């Protein structure tokens, strides 16, 4: 006959097991998997990390299913975030801060790149921002973070973009690359992976196109701080945090692991990301070493983020709704 009451031995075993379970770190205690971890990101370096994490199964213990969708421009991201269609996405830090300051329930979980902006040029004399005086420069991303940062750097070196440089605004990074390769401009502002594309195409044509100015380094010299431009990080919307906030340490830990693996083996990571991002694997592989990929918790990166936001937003900080985001912005 089977007893309906547990034996003393069963109760003791359950108690020991329960105590051991409670002693486990929080990420390992996550009881229920997230049904679908829908991630979004730009077609650039930081998204390679997420694509690799998915392909390597690093989110396997956290979510039953995972997906990564590349958004094509910041407007698409903003629309997705504000409509609630996007709950987790790599986002420009400035855009996330702006939304936060406007009352959207968005938080920054980490920083995924320390900056991927360069001035490419074939002119031997161009090695620093002041060397751009009198030069023709192609500038894509008009009004977006790269142009704002570039303008701040020019102002710091007392260069007027209208008077001291011959600026040609390009519709896209590809157009900027074409202008440079065709010899119609002497330098171009680019972001990875467009920078790598320009260098590769130049080399194929026998041209000496190089990363003449590392804007991260120039930024560090300007601010007197680390050469870091925390341009993008993982932004999370409030509803996701409410539902699955306890899974976030595990998600961030998986991204941390993925970042190390991507930097150690860019070729494999590029193969993992090529289809999702719609970009050629050799180009992604070439761009990874220059994309300054990191996985810094937002709290740790806060000083760098605030330094960047303060400098790029101007005295009135109108680009981020008039103030720096408070501590609750940083997860």
């Amino acid at each position, binding site marked *: 006959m089977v007893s309906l009451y547990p034996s003393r031995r069963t109760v003791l075993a359950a108690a020991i097991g329960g105590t051991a379970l409670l002693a486990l770190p929080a990420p390992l205690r996550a009881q229920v998997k997230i049904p679908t971890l829908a991630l979004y990101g730009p077609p650039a370096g930081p998204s390679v990390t997420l694509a690799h994490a998915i392909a390597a199964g690093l989110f396997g213990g956290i979510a039953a299913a995972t997906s990564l969708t590349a958004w094509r421009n910041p407007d698409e991201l903003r629309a997705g975030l504000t409509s609630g269609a996007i709950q987790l996405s790599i986002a420009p830090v400035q855009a996330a801060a702006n939304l936060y300051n406007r009352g959207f329930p968005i938080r920054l979980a980490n920083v995924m790149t320390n900056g991927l902006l360069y001035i490419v040029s074939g002119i031997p004399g161009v090695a620093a921002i002041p060397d751009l005086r009198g030069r023709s420069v192609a500038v894509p991303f008009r009004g977006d973070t790269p142009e704002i940062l570039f303008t701040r750097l020019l102002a710091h070196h007392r260069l007027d973009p209208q008077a001291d440089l011959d600026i040609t605004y390009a519709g896209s990074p590809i157009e900027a690359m074409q202008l440079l390769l065709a*010899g119609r401009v002497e330098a171009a502002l680019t972001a990875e992976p467009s920078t790598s594309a320009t260098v590769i195409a130049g080399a194929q044509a026998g041209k000496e196109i190089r990363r003449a100015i590392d804007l991260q380094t120039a930024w560090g010299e300007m601010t007197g701080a680390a050469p870091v431009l925390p341009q993008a990080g993982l932004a999370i919307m409030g509803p996701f945090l409410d539902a699955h906030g306890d899974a976030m340490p595990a998600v961030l830990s998986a991204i941390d692991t993925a970042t190390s693996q991507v930097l150690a083996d860019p*070729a494999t990571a590029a193969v993992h990301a090529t289809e999702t991002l719609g970009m050629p694997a050799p180009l992604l592989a070439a761009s990874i070493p220059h994309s300054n990929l990191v996985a810094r918790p937002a709290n740790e990166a806060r000083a760098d983020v605030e330094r960047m936001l303060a400098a790029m937003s101007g005295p009135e900080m109108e680009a981020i709704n008039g103030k720096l985001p408070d501590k609750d912005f940083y997860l």
Partner: protein
Amino acid sequence: MTKSLGTALAIHTLAVLGLFVAAVALATWNGALWPLDLGFSILVTLVGFGVLVLDWGPVWLGLVIASASLKTTYGRLLLWPLATAAMIGLHAVAGPDRGFMKLDRLGADGTLYLYAIPIALALVLGSLLREAFQVIRRGSMTTTAPPPGVMPRADTRPWHVHTRR
């Protein structure tokens, strides 16, 4: 024996394809375009050709004309190394001013790789133009109009495709 335009076109297309495959392979190898993505390798190769054509435009036109004016394939084969050497000389003199790498930076193999295949392609194009021109000229010389009021006989070939014996 004369070749038809179709045969000439097929031979020249094969030559162009062979050269292009070699160019893509070299671009992939020299550019370390790994992991292999054939579409990207082809794109990079075409961009490289495009930049060379844009920068040395009249030179390429001259090469095509020179090739078209030569009567034999042997002549074009002789022209190939000569033109490549001339192009390298031009590069040495005017290339760096146009944003090209200096020869010592390119290296001997890099310089050869940069110009040998594009020049061969220009010579093949010139040869194809010559063939096409000859076929067209042959066609116009053998075309005769029927006398006014005379209709072609039903059991003969059409009157406008007489072939010279």
